[in-house]
């Protein structure tokens, strides 16, 4: 039976609330529990209000929860904003002096162990005793560990793990801070059924950003040109951290247009390249996307979506670029679009995108979003190398020279049945590699002849059949359900949890979840969806996947749950909406 606890840690930017979360998550992970964490923050470096959500369970988690059992309010504002969402059993740790007690105190009608009580802790005061106000967050982490009853040795271990590398002085100060917090919190236990006695050694806690970065490395991507833009930046930050271990180049471009064109240049020269951005940067990259399309140069773009248009909500989340990603650029060419639904999926989707882009010589887009990039969750250690790194590019010029010896010139765009021409890097021998963004002949010379144009468009689209075969069908749960929650990308885990909860309530609902988005296999999808009632669950205002499914298969959705407020999709939100929709679907 699954038990879970949600901790909401609120404060202003600069108070180190993520550190509290990461200490607690480290403790829980190492004692065998599963975690899911999410950061909700504003577009500012100091002040304002941010919060970190940490959900802990003895069963695997795939979604966050917004209803806290433990609210850690680093300031009064955080208390004011979140205390009315406390669960029935909820308790509060509030930073600041209690009005009646200069040191610490608890309030609430039910005594130190009752629900709804507030433990007042003057965190800065305790931190100063430990060596500096800066460790107030570690005091809070210690206090929460005590409230959870983790035992202090786990805390000590995690402090050593996280602060040890930063020197003895810093580690000691944090340990002292944690001790003070733990002391203060130990008389206020929170009753729960979780045990901190297991081991997380076969599992890993990872963010979507890091998983995407690992996927790129596993697929032998070596060049990462980018221009900073939230929420795409963390993916590149993770990649940069590996630059001393493997030969990769992370280059901050002068703008996103440069980034995508650099990726094309490097890919042309034989190095797999990937860039990450958000919708605004992706908009700037669109002409380059088309260049990759017509020049048949593989590139991968990760669009970590945020609400738009224009600046929109810079640090928030959205799923509103699906149709844009599929249609971006003038005219038509084949491309891949993926939308991973979990941290582990992000790893596999990026790996697959890089591999397939190279195999088919097309651009690939991976749609993530702020929610997936900034969420960390416990995943099984299944981040395997695989064989996506194996090259399709022929590096030894043998192809070209063989052709030359037959009296031909190397043809970069040679017609083949599959539409894929053997690709070699430039300057590797007698075969001249000529690549153009103009419509071109087989040797890459610009040509306006209508027959050439038709032949080249047909050549590029000849890849489409095999590209569709490379795409996984959506996953279907409980295929004979009365209706289905249908969604795509990062909301996968929320939809699954909502679905399972609704089924426990006796509602006959299944799910249909898409991760490999484009190109869609029309016939297979039409067969799969025939006679199914779809309730779309999407992070946009117009049901973009529903629209796409309808346009491809003719299957229309019966209703939709939409969320476009910039905040993540929580299971509770879906559950409530679906209950309201019951009249429509039954």
């Amino acid at each position: 039976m699954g038990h879970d606890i949600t901790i909401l840690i609120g404060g202003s930017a600069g108070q180190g609330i993520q550190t509290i979360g990461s200490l607690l998550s480290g403790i829980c992970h190492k004692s065998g529990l599963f975690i899911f964490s999410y950061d909700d923050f504003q577009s500012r470096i100091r002040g304002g209000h941010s919060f970190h959500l940490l959900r802990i369970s003895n069963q695997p988690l795939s979604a966050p929860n917004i209803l806290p059992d433990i609210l850690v309010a680093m300031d009064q504002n955080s208390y004011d904003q979140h205390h009315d969402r406390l669960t029935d059993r909820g308790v509060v740790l509030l930073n600041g002096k209690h009005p009646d007690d200069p040191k610490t105190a608890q309030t609430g009608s039910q005594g130190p162990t009752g629900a709804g009580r507030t433990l007042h802790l003057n965190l800065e005061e305790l931190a100063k005793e430990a060596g500096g106000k800066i460790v107030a967050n570690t005091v809070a982490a210690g206090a929460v560990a005590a409230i959870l009853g983790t035992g202090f040795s786990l805390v000590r271990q995690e402090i050593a793990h996280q602060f040890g590398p930063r020197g003895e002085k810093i580690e000691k100060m944090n340990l002292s801070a944690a001790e003070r917090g733990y002391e203060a919190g130990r008389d206020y236990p929170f009753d729960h059924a979780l045990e901190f006695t297991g081991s997380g050694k076969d599992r890993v806690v990872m963010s979507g950003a890091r998983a995407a970065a690992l996927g790129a490395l596993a697929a032998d991507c070596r060049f990462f040109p980018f221009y900073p833009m939230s929420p795409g930046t963390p993916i590149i930050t993770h990649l940069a951290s590996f630059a001393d271990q493997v030969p990769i180049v992370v280059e901050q471009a002068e703008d996103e247009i440069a980034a995508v064109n650099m990726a094309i240049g490097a890919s042309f020269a034989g190095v797999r390249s990937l860039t990450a951005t958000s919708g605004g940067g992706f908009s700037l990259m669109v002409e380059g996307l088309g260049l990759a399309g017509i020049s048949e140069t593989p590139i991968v773009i990760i669009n970590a979506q945020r609400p738009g248009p224009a600046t929109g909500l810079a640090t928030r989340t959205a799923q509103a670029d699906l149709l844009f990603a599929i249609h971006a650029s003038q005219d038509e060419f084949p491309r891949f679009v993926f939308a991973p639904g979990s941290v582990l999926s992000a790893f596999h989707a990026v790996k697959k995108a890089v591999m397939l882009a190279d195999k088919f010589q097309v651009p690939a887009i991976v749609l993530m979003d702020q929610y997936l990039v900034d969420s960390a969750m416990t995943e099984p250690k299944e981040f395997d190398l695989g064989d996506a790194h194996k090259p399709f590019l022929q590096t030894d010029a043998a192809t070209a020279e063989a052709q030359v010896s037959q009296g031909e010139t190397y043809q970069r765009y040679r017609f083949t049945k599959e539409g894929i021409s053997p690709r070699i890097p430039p300057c590797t021998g007698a075969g001249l590699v000529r690549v153009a963004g103009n419509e071109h002949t087989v040797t890459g010379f610009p040509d306006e002849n209508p027959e050439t144009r038709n032949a080249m468009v047909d050549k590029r689209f000849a890849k489409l059949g095999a590209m569709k075969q490379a795409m996984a069908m959506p996953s279907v749960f409980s295929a004979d359900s009365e209706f289905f929650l249908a969604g795509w990308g990062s909301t996968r885990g929320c939809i699954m949890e909502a679905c399972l909860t609704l089924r426990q309530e006796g509602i006959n609902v299944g799910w249909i979840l898409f991760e490999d988005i484009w190109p869609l296999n029309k016939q297979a999808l039409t067969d799969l969806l025939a006679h199914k009632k779809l309730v779309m669950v999407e992070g946009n205002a117009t049901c973009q996947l529903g629209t796409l499914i309808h346009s491809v298969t003719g299957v229309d959705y019966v209703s939709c749950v939409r969320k476009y407020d910039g905040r993540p999709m929580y299971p509770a939100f879906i559950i409530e909406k679906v209950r309201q929709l019951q009249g429509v679907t039954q």
Partner: protein
Amino acid sequence: MKQSRFDTQHENQWCPGCGNFGILSAMKQAFESQNLAPEDLLLVGGIGQAGKTPQYIQGNMLHGLHGRALAMATGVKIANHDLRVVVSAGDGDCYGEGGNHFLAAIRRNLDITLLVHNNQVYGLTKGQASPTTALGTVTKIQDNGTTSDPFNPVATALAAGASFVARGFSGNTDQLKDLIVNAMSHQGFAMIDIFQPCVSFNKINTHAWYKDRVYNLADTNHDPADLAQALNLALDQGTDKIPTGLIFQQEKKPFHRRLAPLQNQSLVTYPFNPKAITAILEQG
């Protein structure tokens, strides 16, 4: 024009009498004189009449988007800095649409040769003002005369820290050929701004107009190692004379030497290292 192994069979689409022909000829001569073969060369082009240049030269070619040739060349050189890259772009392409990339490529000291065909007008789009068009010039669009001051590419390049800056003239192919050879042997960003007449749309800066004004810096006591002198030349608007030749050159670490993994080999030549990647994956 004499035959060259860099000739292509494709029809040249430039207007008869275009200054581009002089540049094309100087390029081929420069490649020949370095004993290069077509397979040794990567020609990168932007969009515009100048951007078409790589089509008319036998060699490897990367012909991309308007304004973005330098960005693509940056990616190429990061992937494989051993490639010999010559970028051809026009004044609109390089200084207008691609201005940001121009500055960034200089700052990186990217090890390439950039030839800017500067005819002070947009040719392929039929005669609009370019960034280098003189203030007040009347065009079909700017029919009361242009209203922006002209861009000074040489002064801008010097101010941004370019390590090789030269000016050529399409009417002096011997000098231009030598400049291209020097530019290609320079370690770092080598730019030649090349004045050329546009016979179709620029009725002011004609071949004769240039002929009356150009002089060769090699015939003067100009010292290309002297940045102040170079800037003075670039900023001197008082005389009606146009200096051509090498304006400035300094030694400066090229971009790939600034990147740790590229010190001993190019990025593309590293074998994939499954052990190192697996270690990273296992560490999580």
